[in-house]
């Protein structure tokens, strides 16, 4: 049983699986893109022999992605003991077999023991890093020096951050993004948005559009950008005002408000609802907007606009009415105490804003930065280690230099060669 688990773990943690998963993803994506985009073209119709498929939203994709994540985790865990032993090797007294197994190993005769020791300490400090004496016993000296010890962390950083980015995008799906039109002077009190499932969410602040304009380049009529001045209100008091354009957003309570690219003139219907007690309430709606009728809990939506009348449809029942300047009574029994009339139709300049709440954004952003740092450490930094053994001999000393590097082996070889040349 243990053998099976070990075999499975070795397979999941192997670099061959990494190559297999990445290659499989590459081939499948190439097939899908070519099938989707090139097969419809007259000269590429032969690509239709590939059956249509949607790998992106299939179980196969989930399995491949899960395998990729498992591989990332397993290879990181597998490498951990080796990384720890590398760090521990600095205090270890190396035997001759170990020294000769190093990629850069040189053995040669040098001057007397004391002089060689002093020279070695000076040369290695100057050319490499400060060495320390691992052991000095009788006629034998062991030195160790290293550089770039923490570059091994780059591997873990890069891999863990890829996983965190994937987790961050999953977390982001719990957020929301909602575009809404707003007219100059319009107040959303409170701001109500919809999530991905079209469920309404009431935010804990209000938003008012104080101004909106289109900005041109200099004196020309070339459009530069749409700009809005937006104020956030809390408890009726303005807490933040900012100019927004497509590249500048406002953040409040974790919600980002972005300026979208559009502006348009929209027809708003100003309606008046009277109840039997003579209480009046006005509503300003554009197509698609809804309002509650008194305390009835019934909601009506503006569905059509004509030159002098508008249609209101009940959200909960199939009923609808046309409303003009003459007050009209609702037909639903629950609404018969109310009458509605159209006061006027207004043309308003509106712009489009976007409210985005992305709970995974910070995780993705920081993971991305650390991932780049991890890649840079993996590719461009090197953990270089140098062991030195000096044996006193009758006519001088015998020196063994042994070096190992994770990257840039030629630089280490040059450095070892230079130390040898300086001592001989």
């Amino acid at each position: 049983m243990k053998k099976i688990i070990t075999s499975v773990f070795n397979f999941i943690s192997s670099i061959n699986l990494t190559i297999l998963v990445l290659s499989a993803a590459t081939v499948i994506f190439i097939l899908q893109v070519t099938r989707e985009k090139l097969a419809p073209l007259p000269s590429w119709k032969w690509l239709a022999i590939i059956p249509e498929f949607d790998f992106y939203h299939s179980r196969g994709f989930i399995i491949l992605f899960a395998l990729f994540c498992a591989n990332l985790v397993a290879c990181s865990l597998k490498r951990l003991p080796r990384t720890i032993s590398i760090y521990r090797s600095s205090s270890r007294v190396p035997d001759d077999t170990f020294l000769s197994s190093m990629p850069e190993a040189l053995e040669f005769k040098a001057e007397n023991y004391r002089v060689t020791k002093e020279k070695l300490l000076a040369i290695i400090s100057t050319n490499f890093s400060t060495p320390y004496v691992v052991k000095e016993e009788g006629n034998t000296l062991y030195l160790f020096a290293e550089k770039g010890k923490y570059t091994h962390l780059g591997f873990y950083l890069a891999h863990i951050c890829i996983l965190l980015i994937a987790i961050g995008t999953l977390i982001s799906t719990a957020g929301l993004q909602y575009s809404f039109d707003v007219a100059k002077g319009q107040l959303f009190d409170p701001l109500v948005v919809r999530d991905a499932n079209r469920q309404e969410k009431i935010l804990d602040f209000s938003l008012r559009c104080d101004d909106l304009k289109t900005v041109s380049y200099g004196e020309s009529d070339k459009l530069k950008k749409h700009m809005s001045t937006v104020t956030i209100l809390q408890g009726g008091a303005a807490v933040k005002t900012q100019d927004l354009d497509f590249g500048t957003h406002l953040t409040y309570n974790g919600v980002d408000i972005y300026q979208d690219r559009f502006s348009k003139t929209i027809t708003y219907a100003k309606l008046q609802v009277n109840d039997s007690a003579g209480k009046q309430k006005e509503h300003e709606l554009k197509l698609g907007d809804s309002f509650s009728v008194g305390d009835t809990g019934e909601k009506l939506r503006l569905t059509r606009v004509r030159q002098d009348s508008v249609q209101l449809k009940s959200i909960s029942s199939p009923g609808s009415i046309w409303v003009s300047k003459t007050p009209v009574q609702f037909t639903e029994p629950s609404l018969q105490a109310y009458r509605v009339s159209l006061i006027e139709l207004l043309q308003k300049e509106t712009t489009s804003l976007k409210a985005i709440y992305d709970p995974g954004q910070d995780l993705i952003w920081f993971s991305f930065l650390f991932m780049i740092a991890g890649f840079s450490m993996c590719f461009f930094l090197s953990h270089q280690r140098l062991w030195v053994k000096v044996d006193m001999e009758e006519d001088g000393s015998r020196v063994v230099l042994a070096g190992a590097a994770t990257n840039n082996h030629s630089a280490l070889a040059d450095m070892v060669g230079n130390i040898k040349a300086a001592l001989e």
Partner: protein
Amino acid sequence: MQDQNILSMAALLYIFSAALYFSNPFLKVSRIGALATLVTVFAFLVHTLSFLLRWIATYRMGFGHLHIVTLYESLSFIVWAIVLAYLILEIKFKNKIVGSFVIPLAAIVLIYTTMVVPDTQSTIAPVPEVLHGNFYNYHVIPCFLGYGAFTISFGASILYFIKKRKKAACSTEADMVQLSASLQLLNEIIYNAIAIGFIFFTIQLIAGMFRTKIIWGSYWQWDPTQVLGLITWLIYSVILHGRFTRWWKGDMTAILSILGFITAIAGFLAATGRMVTTGHYPIL
């Protein structure tokens, strides 16, 4: 426009340095190689000057953005990135071997840019609103820098196969040893170029994800341009991981490097709207 005149001068200089790089391996005169590098550096500085002049011109016209929007500007920047990547790798490896392929390629692309790309795309125009802010510069600049590095790896891969064929045909041991060293060097150049390009390409992928989130509402839309970018990233990931396996050979690196470059080009064509329909905002 002043910047366009300067750019065409840079193109001519690149042609001259391309001729020098191309003849260098055959003539084997060290001064030609040094002259090639010198001319390339000078051409690069002239090219950079054309960018600066264009940038200043955009401010004078009231637009004031880093202009990498039209096909003209994009191709010019890609060539600049290719030459920059090449010069860095030439300094690092102290070898001009890849220059004989890459610099002529850069020269051809710049000649195309200055002679064939229509005037409507070479005149300075306002940057469309959708390209304001939202990580646009963080997306496009690393993308093109990545393309520059990938072009170096592509050039080195082509040369790798040429050298390999020569090695198979050569008879003397000295030549074989020399060619083996060349192949190893080319492999190192391919790897280093891919490593640099991979980091830039990752930055552009993530910055692109942030842009997509703002504009379309989710980090990933499975748009063809995005998918082609991901395919390119995956291919280079395979190369970077493959080097750590025992069975991975230099040939595999070179083949996949060429394939990665082809998908990178496909991604660029998709982004310009010239290959497939895409929701990605097209390079004009």
